[in-house]
């Protein structure tokens, strides 16, 4: 390997590394994979620029921030429960406490906040459901024929009916 490296004049890398913004080879169920994301969300929400935003504005901001930053991660990796709780905590504290932070009273439980507006909620998206919905899209793409390289790789690895396994719950 060393010889190949010197010959090609390049460095030997190791997993996990970042490619196109996503961690490759990282374990999605480990907390550390998600730390940069949590950091990012938290700094974006708690920047001083958001200091004088009204409650309604914070709701809008919550949705736009979670729609923007983590969606890339969430469209590929399944979020562990611990990360979800942490994210909700950041969101909740921002919603009720604002940028100044500190523990404020949350007047309504988070699940109600996540109800759609028509049903008496604030229309904030539940990030866990967002995650699962995004992952479901992979299933759809597996089942619906487009011939992509990533599918060929999966078929080579998991067998010719890999794509159909997803349907009908395992048995054909």
């Amino acid at each position, binding site marked *: 390997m060393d010889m190949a490296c010197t010959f090609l004049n390049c460095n030997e890398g190791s997993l996990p590394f970042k490619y196109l913004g996503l961690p490759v080879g990282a*374990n*999605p*169920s480990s907390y550390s994979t998600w730390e940069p994301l949590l950091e990012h969300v938290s700094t974006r929400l708690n920047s001083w620029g958001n200091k004088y935003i009204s409650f309604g504005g914070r709701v809008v901001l919550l949705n736009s921030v979670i729609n923007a930053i983590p969606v890339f991660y969430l469209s*590929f*990796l*399944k979020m562990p*429960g611990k990360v979800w709780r942490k994210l909700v905590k950041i969101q909740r504290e921002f919603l009720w406490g604002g940028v100044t932070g500190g523990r404020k009273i949350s007047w309504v439980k988070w*699940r109600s906040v*996540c*109800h*759609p507006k028509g*049903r008496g909620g604030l229309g904030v*998206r*539940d990030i*866990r*459901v*967002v995650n*699962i*919905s*995004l*992952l*479901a*899209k*992979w*299933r*759809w793409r*597996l*089942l*619906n*024929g487009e011939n992509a390289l990533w599918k*060929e*790789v*999966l078929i*080579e*690895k*998991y*067998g*010719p009916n890999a794509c159909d*396994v*997803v*349907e*009908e*719950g395992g048995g*054909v």
Partner: protein
Amino acid sequence: MLVMSWRKEGGFRPSVSSRWWKDIIHIEGREGVSWFNEELERRVRNGENTKFWHCRWQGGVSFRVKYPRHFSMSNLKDATVAEVWVLNGTVKEWSFSWRRPFFVWEEQLLINLLADLEGHVWNEGADGRGWKREEDEVFSVKSMYTKLEGLVILENRWGAEEQIVFN
């Protein structure tokens, strides 16, 4: 390159599946409500990709499950729809091959089966799947979210349902 190296390592069913693959496979949870699959519907066009007995392509269950007796008597258990539905003169007909002649009561069941198949039309193009929640039958994350929202957020039924979705 990648494809080649995997093949060399000993073919299918690797003992180690990637985490991502497991997550996708088991996204519905290992048992219970199939909140994803129940929104899928097979669209049979030329029938070449659809197994007549095994796939769910007419109604909610496969014909293997709905007509187990006929399935066990069929000589073409793995046939595709295209193979069973053949051109006879100018019209397409269902041509099954049975192991033995029918008893009288089985005839009646066969009539039911044929009634289920009534009105099947042949279409140009490969078989695919449709997504019931969208008009254009193409999956959308939004429709999925709306469905899951109904399942786990609105109904106040976390606990059991939550287990199903987030296992």
